[in-house]
C-alpha cells in the first residue's frame, strides 16, 4: 500500500537529480534513468499483486489527511492497468534512448524532461483528486511541449508552438470545467463529487461542465474534430518521444481521464455514449483516410494514432461490458505496437537519415531486426489473426453488433481495411522492393535500440493471450469492472481508506 505515492515521486525526484548530477556524465544519466523506469515498471506489476490480495480499491491519504479534506491517491483495477502500460512502454523507451539520443547534445535535459513527463502521467493515473489531476496533467503537458521542440529546428519549433496553443486551450477548458464542478459540488475529491452528483442530480451547469471536459480531454486525446495538433507535434519530436506521445501520453491524459470522469464521476448516460460512438467512428474513418496519402514515415504513423484512438473511443461509447473490454484491450495493444512502430521509424531515420518513404526501399536485407519487428507491428495494427490487434478489433466489432449498432461495426471494419492498406504501402516502400545504391553501407542499429524493439515485438505477440479467460481475470477484468460498475467508485472513500 505504501508504494502508491512512489509513482509520481520517483519520476519527479529522478528528474531533479538528473538535472543536478547528469551534466557531468552521460553514463550516469543512462543508467540512472533506466533504473528509475525499470523500478516503476516493477512497482506497477507489484501494484497488481497488492490489488489481487485485497477485496476493495485502495485509497492512500497524502500527508495523513482523510480523503475529502486532503488529497487522496487511488489504486483500483483501471489505474493499475494503466500504470503497467505506461511504465512498461516508458522503460522500453528509455532503453532505446541510450543509443538513439547520442546524436543530440545535452542528453541529461532530455532525461529530465522525460522523467517529468512520466511523473505527470503516473500522477494523473493514481490521483483521486480532480485538481491534483489537473496539476499533473499540466506537468506532463509542459514537459511534452519542450520535448516536441527538442531538435530546435524551425519546423519543430512551429509544431511545438501549435501544440502548445491547442493544448493550453484544452487545459483552460478543463480548468473551467473543474471550476463549475467545484462550485456545484463544493469538493474536489472525485469520489466525493460522485456522491454529491448522485444525491443532487445533474443540472444545466453540470451539462456545461461535461461539455467542457469532453472538449478539453478530446483535445488531449486527439479525437477527430480536435486532432489538428497531433500530426505536426508527434512527428517533430525525437523518435522515443514520438513513441511516448503516441503510445501512452494521449491515452493517459486523454482516454483515461475521459473514462474516469464520465464513467466514475458523472456516470455514463445514453446521450454521452452516443456522442462517444459518433466521435470514435469519425476518428476511425478520417484518421485512416488521411493516413493513406502520407509519404512521411512518422506523419503516417501519427494519423494512424488518430485512427486507432477512434476504436478505443468507439468501444468505450458502446458502454457494454464487451465493448469496454475491447476498448481497454485495444488501448494496451495500441500503446505497444504504436510505440514499436515509432521506434522503428526512429531506427530507419537513424541509419538512413530521411523520413520520406519514397526515398527508401529494400532495407529488409540491411536491417533484419528493424524490418521484422516492424512487420510484426504492422500486422498487429492492421488486425492480422495471430497478433494482438486482431483480437481487440474483433471484440470491438462483435460488441458493436451485439449492441445492435451494425452501422458502427461497418465503419470499424472499413477503418481496419484502410489500416491494412496504408501499412502495406509503408512496408512495401520502406522494407521491401529494391535497395537504392546509396544505402549499400547501411548497417543495423546499435544494441539497446534492437533490444527495446524486440521486447515490444514480443509484447505484441504475447499480448494476444491477454483475452484468454485465465489471464484475463488478472489484468483486464479488474479494469473492466471499474468501468462497467462505474458508480461504485463513489464508495471508495468509505471502504478503501487504510
Amino acid at each position, binding site marked *: 500500500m*505504501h508504494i502508491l*505515492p512512489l509513482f509520481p*515521486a520517483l519520476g*519527479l*525526484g529522478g528528474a*531533479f*537529480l538528473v*538535472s*543536478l548530477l547528469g551534466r557531468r556524465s552521460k553514463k550516469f544519466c543512462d543508467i540512472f534513468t533506466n533504473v528509475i523506469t525499470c523500478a516503476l515498471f516493477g512497482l506497477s506489476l507489484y501494484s497488481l499483486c497488492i490489488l489481487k490480495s485485497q477485496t476493495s480499491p485502495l485509497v*492512500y*491519504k*497524502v*500527508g*495523513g489527511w482523510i480523503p475529502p479534506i486532503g488529497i487522496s491517491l487511488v489504486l483500483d483495477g483501471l489505474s493499475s492497468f494503466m500504470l503497467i502500460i505506461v511504465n512498461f512502454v516508458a522503460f522500453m523507451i528509455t532503453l532505446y534512448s541510450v543509443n538513439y539520443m547520442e546524436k543530440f547534445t545535452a542528453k541529461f535535459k532530455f532525461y529530465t524532461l522525460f522523467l517529468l513527463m512520466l511523473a505527470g502521467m503516473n500522477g494523473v493515473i493514481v490521483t483521486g483528486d480532480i485538481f491534483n489531476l489537473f496539476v499533473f496533467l499540466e506537468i506532463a503537458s509542459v514537459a511534452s511541449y519542450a520535448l516536441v521542440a527538442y531538435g530546435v529546428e*524551425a519546423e519543430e519549433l512551429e509544431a511545438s508552438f501549435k501544440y502548445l496553443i491547442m493544448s493550453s486551450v484544452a487545459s483552460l477548458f478543463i480548468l473551467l470545467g473543474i471550476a463549475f464542478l467545484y462550485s456545484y459540488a463544493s469538493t474536489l475529491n472525485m469520489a466525493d463529487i460522485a456522491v454529491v452528483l448522485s444525491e443532487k442530480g445533474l443540472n444545466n451547469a453540470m451539462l456545461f461542465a461535461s461539455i467542457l471536459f469532453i472538449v478539453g480531454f478530446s483535445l488531449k486525446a486527439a479525437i477527430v474534430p480536435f486532432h489538428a495538433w497531433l500530426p505536426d507535434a508527434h512527428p517533430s519530436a525525437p523518435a522515443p518521444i514520438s513513441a511516448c506521445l503516441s503510445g501512452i501520453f494521449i491515452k493517459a491524459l486523454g482516454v483515461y481521464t475521459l473514462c474516469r470522469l464520465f464513467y466514475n464521476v458523472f456516470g455514463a448516460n445514453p446521450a454521452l455514449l452516443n456522442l462517444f460512438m459518433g466521435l470514435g467512428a469519425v476518428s476511425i474513418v478520417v484518421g485512416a483516410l488521411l493516413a493513406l496519402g502520407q509519404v512521411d514515415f512518422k506523419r503516417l504513423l501519427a494519423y494512424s494514432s488518430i485512427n486507432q484512438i477512434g476504436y478505443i473511443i468507439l468501444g468505450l461509447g458502446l458502454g457494454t461490458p464487451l465493448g469496454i473490454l475491447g476498448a481497454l484491450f485495444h488501448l494496451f495493444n495500441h500503446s505497444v505496437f504504436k510505440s514499436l512502430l515509432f521506434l522503428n521509424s526512429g531506427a530507419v531515420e537513424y541509419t538512413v537519415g530521411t523520413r520520406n518513404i519514397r526515398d527508401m526501399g529494400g532495407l529488409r536485407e540491411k536491417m533484419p531486426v528493424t524490418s521484422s519487428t516492424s512487420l510484426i507491428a504492422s500486422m498487429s495494427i492492421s488486425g492480422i489473426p495471430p497478433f494482438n490487434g486482431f483480437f481487440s478489433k474483433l471484440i470491438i466489432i462483435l460488441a458493436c453488433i451485439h449492441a445492435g449498432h451494425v452501422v458502427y461495426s461497418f465503419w470499424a471494419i472499413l477503418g481496419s481495411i484502410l489500416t491494412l492498406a496504408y501499412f502495406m504501402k509503408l512496408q512495401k516502400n520502406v522494407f521491401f522492393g529494391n535497395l537504392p545504391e546509396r544505402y549499400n553501407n547501411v548497417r543495423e542499429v546499435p544494441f539497446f535500440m534492437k533490444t527495446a524493439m524486440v521486447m515490444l515485438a514480443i509484447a505484441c505477440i504475447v499480448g494476444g493471450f491477454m483475452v484468454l479467460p485465465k489471464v484475463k481475470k488478472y489484468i483486464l477484468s479488474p479494469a473492466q469492472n471499474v468501468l462497467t460498475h462505474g458508480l461504485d467508485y463513489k464508495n471508495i472513500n468509505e471502504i478503501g481508506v487504510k
Partner: protein
Amino acid sequence: MNYNSPHKGMTLIVKTITRITVGLILLYGIYITLHGHVSPGGGFAGGVIIALSFIHLMLAFGKEEALRRLPKPLVSLFESLGAILFFTIAILGFVGGYFFLDWLNKGEPFKLFSAGSILLSNIAIAIKVSFGLFGIFLVLVLLKFTPKK
C-alpha cells in the same frame, strides 16, 4: 572591476537607488517566505520577490555585473537543489508514515516556529521559485536570434 562604469547599465541615479533598495527587496522577500504560515504570502510569493531583486540588479548594472555575482551554473544548481529539498521533506514524511506527513512539532499557533514542516517547505519553494524565475529571465536575456537567410 568597476561596476560603476557609466558605459554599462543605467544612469548613476538608478544605480545609487538600486544599491540602497536591492537589499531591502531581498530582505522583504525573505520575510514573506519565513512568515508564509502565519501571514499572507508564502514560498511562491517570497520567491518571486527575491527573484525580482536579482532582476533589479541586472536591469540597473547590466547583465555582466549580474552574471558575475550569480553565474548561470549556480542558478541552475540552486534551482535543482530547491526542488530536491522540497522532495526530501515529502520523502521524510513518507518514511515516517505518509507522503508529506508533517513530522515536526506543531508548536504554538501564530508564532514564527510553528506549523511543523510548512516553514521548511516554504523555504524550499522560495529557493526553487526565485532561482527558477531568475533563470528564465537570464535565458531570455542571453537568447540570440540568428535570422534565416
